């Protein structure tokens, strides 16, 4: 078992203060929730800087903070591709080109846009799959959190789950989307202030970025890669075998940068809802652009801890001798030893470390409790613990409380994002559309509150299911991936090709999802066995890595949906132009920006975002 950190009174005090403020915000907002629009869309009255920060914060769940730290330890700086390639371009696109239709059509949700643009069945398929997905993803992250706090602090699994569920329930029940958004802003700053000192201390202890790079060379060569493979984001992308993520540049750009990224940032109601709450069209368009600025620097906040965790125990690659392997006698290695002595409990209390594992503990078998080893006899690392171990390693009582509160905040913001998106889609797209039409607004407001309760109830149930049947959750996430992959093709055709029809969109979505399942069923990542990893229809191709398989599954799904939608649309009757005003690019007036100062214009901000992103890529190439 991993040692549990013991918390001091001050750590609990910081958590308690946070809880008081989070609940206080919900309580303070309760009297403003008069109509269903107030509750589900914040009355479309929030300034852009707030919706912008909420836009990324809702996405910054615990899975992101923990998961990106884990990927940082696994893939090094290449994890930044999930931001610079896999988020920023799509965020710019949704702000510049898609928000005019989401906001301008006055749709109250993304499925409702599909209803306005296409037809009832396209909306239904999107609304149902989205509602199910939000409940389960919130449950899965709740499970991850409960497990983590049990491991780290010895807290009871049920205790952590119920306390956070009830707090999130309370503040959304009282203050609706506004409460979720306001708290997301608070949580955003808390996450930044909780993790920034971790990065600063960590970098200082490994000798800055240069020191980190030198140390990771040894780890990199230990894995059979070029020395700089973990610290160069583009240099080794020419071939899948030469970089740690096992993906070549084309697969990365097409699969992650285009299909998956646009599919998430441009169509997921969880994030789009934040922009829809903005107080004007310009504010809605600026929302993802404002979000893009902090987003591009997040790799330093969430990925670096994982990389530092890996480097904290590593020796230094001897460049002059050109030898691969660890030079344990070098000066830097002695410094490492000193850091280890001064930080944390005495070294003797810890299990002996394998080279290249840093402070990341090996994965323990859930049944036997023994460390798992791979086919080469090396321990399999529990990468998900990279960031949490960093907190325990570098933070004394006081700051540890802040760091753990930041972790809790990230968890709650992600959960609140899911719950607010769920209650809106449930109430507007399912309840109002198929169960009870034409009721009073007060009735739907009441339904929204009820949906908040059972949405959270279902998430808690999903967390317990995840705890007892891990495989079911893997399977579900796989199905969600199939459903999500083709989405962007439908939206892109809907918004930019007025000829596309409801029948086309619907058949496109269904066949795209089927194509994803078929492709996944016919391929396998290298070294995997047929089953949940793919190959259940027989193996046609093997991909160099699981990521490569995921990206290609998405590319196949997207292309199928795109082609099928075009074919079926051409064969079916289009809607007359006058019904598509405000829903399709060519039939919608361009947003006017004449009276906005130039530096606040979406186009100017978009260009600034893209230039900065290119610079970051070049600096860390």
């Amino acid at each position, binding site marked *: 078992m991993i040692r549990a950190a013991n918390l001091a009174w001050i750590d609990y005090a910081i958590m308690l203060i946070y809880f008081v*403020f989070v609940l206080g915000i919900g309580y303070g907002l309760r009297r403003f929730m008069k109509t269903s629009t107030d509750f589900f869309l914040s*009355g479309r009255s929030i300034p852009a800087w707030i919706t912008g920060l909420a836009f990324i914060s809702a996405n910054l769940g615990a899975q992101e903070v923990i998961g990106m730290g884990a990927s940082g330890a696994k893939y090094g700086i290449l994890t930044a591709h999930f931001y610079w390639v896999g988020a920023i371009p799509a965020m710019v696109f949704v702000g510049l080109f898609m928000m005019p239709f989401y906001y301008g059509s006055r749709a109250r949700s993304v499925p409702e846009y599909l209803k306005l643009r296409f037809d009832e069945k396209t909306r239904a398929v999107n609304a149902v799959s989205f509602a199910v997905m939000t409940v389960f993803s919130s449950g899965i992250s709740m499970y991850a959190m409960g497990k983590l706090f049990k491991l780290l602090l010895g807290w009871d699994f049920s205790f952590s789950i119920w306390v956070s569920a009830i707090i999130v329930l309370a503040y959304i029940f009282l203050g609706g989307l506004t409460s979720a958004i306001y708290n997301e802003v608070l949580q955003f700053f808390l996450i930044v202030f909780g993790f920034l000192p971790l990065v600063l201390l960590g970098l200082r202890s490994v000798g800055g970025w240069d020191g980190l790079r030198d140390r990771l060379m040894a780890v990199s060569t230990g894995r059979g890669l070029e020395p700089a493979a973990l610290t160069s984001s583009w240099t080794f992308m020419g071939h899948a075998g030469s970089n740690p993520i096992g993906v070549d540049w084309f697969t990365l750009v097409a699969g992650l940068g285009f299909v998956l990224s646009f599919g998430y940032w441009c169509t997921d109601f969880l994030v789009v809802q934040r922009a829809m709450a903005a107080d004007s069209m310009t504010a809605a368009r600026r929302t993802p652009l404002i979000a893009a600025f902090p987003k591009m620097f997040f790799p330093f906040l969430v990925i670096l801890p994982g990389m530092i965790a890996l480097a904290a125990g590593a020796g230094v690659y001897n460049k002059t001798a050109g030898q691969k392997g660890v030079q344990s006698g070098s000066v830097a290695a002695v410094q490492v030893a000193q850091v280890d002595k001064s930080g944390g409990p005495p070294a003797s209390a810890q299990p002996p470390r394998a080279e290249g594992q840093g402070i990341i503990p090996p994965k323990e078998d859930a049944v036997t409790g023994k460390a798992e080893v791979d086919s080469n006899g090396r321990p399999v690392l529990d990468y998900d613990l990279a960031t949490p171990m960093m907190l325990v390693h570098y933070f*004394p009582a006081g700051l540890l409380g802040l760091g753990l509160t930041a972790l809790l905040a990230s968890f709650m913001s992600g959960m609140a994002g899911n719950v607010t998106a769920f209650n809106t889609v449930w109430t507007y797209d399912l309840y109002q559309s198929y169960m009870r039409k034409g009721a009073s607004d007060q009735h739907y407001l009441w339904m929204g509150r009820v949906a908040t309760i059972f949405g959270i109830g279902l998430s808690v149930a999903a967390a317990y299911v995840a705890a007892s049947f891990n495989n079911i959750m893997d399977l579900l996430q796989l199905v969600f991936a199939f459903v999500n992959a083709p989405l962007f093709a439908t939206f892109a055709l809907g918004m930019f090709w007025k000829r596309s029809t409801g029948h086309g969109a619907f058949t496109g979505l269904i066949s795209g999802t089927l194509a994803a399942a078929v492709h996944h069923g016919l391929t396998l990542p290298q070294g995997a066995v047929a089953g949940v990893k793919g190959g259940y229809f027989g193996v046609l191709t093997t991909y160099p890595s699981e990521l490569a398989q995921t990206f290609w599954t998405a590319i196949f799904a997207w292309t199928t949906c795109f082609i099928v939608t075009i074919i079926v649309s051409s064969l079916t009757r289009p809607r007359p132009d006058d019904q598509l005003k405000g829903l399709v690019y060519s039939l919608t007036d361009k947003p006017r920006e004449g009276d906005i100062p130039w530096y606040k214009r979406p186009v100017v901000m978009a260009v600034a975002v893209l230039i900065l992103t290119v610079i970051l890529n070049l600096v860390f190439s």
Partner: protein
Amino acid sequence: MGLDIRLPIGGMFFIVGLLLTIYGVATSGDPAYQKSLSIDINLWWGLVMVIFGVIFLGFGIRGASKIKHGTEDSPEGQAIEAREHEASLEV
């Protein structure tokens, strides 16, 4: 909407920052700080948070007073309010 979010954010960072600063002073020189490379990180980071909190509180209070002495206090403002009321554009 009703509540200026800068006030609770500023308030929370101010209180947590102050708590960390005081705790940092009280525990200065404690061997526990070997973890944070012998830096009294509670003290310094607490101060950073206090400054951040004060800035946000400042903005929030300034924003609140702006609204309070805003539209209704001037004749033009009252006219605008009246027009908005008639056109039922009030927020």
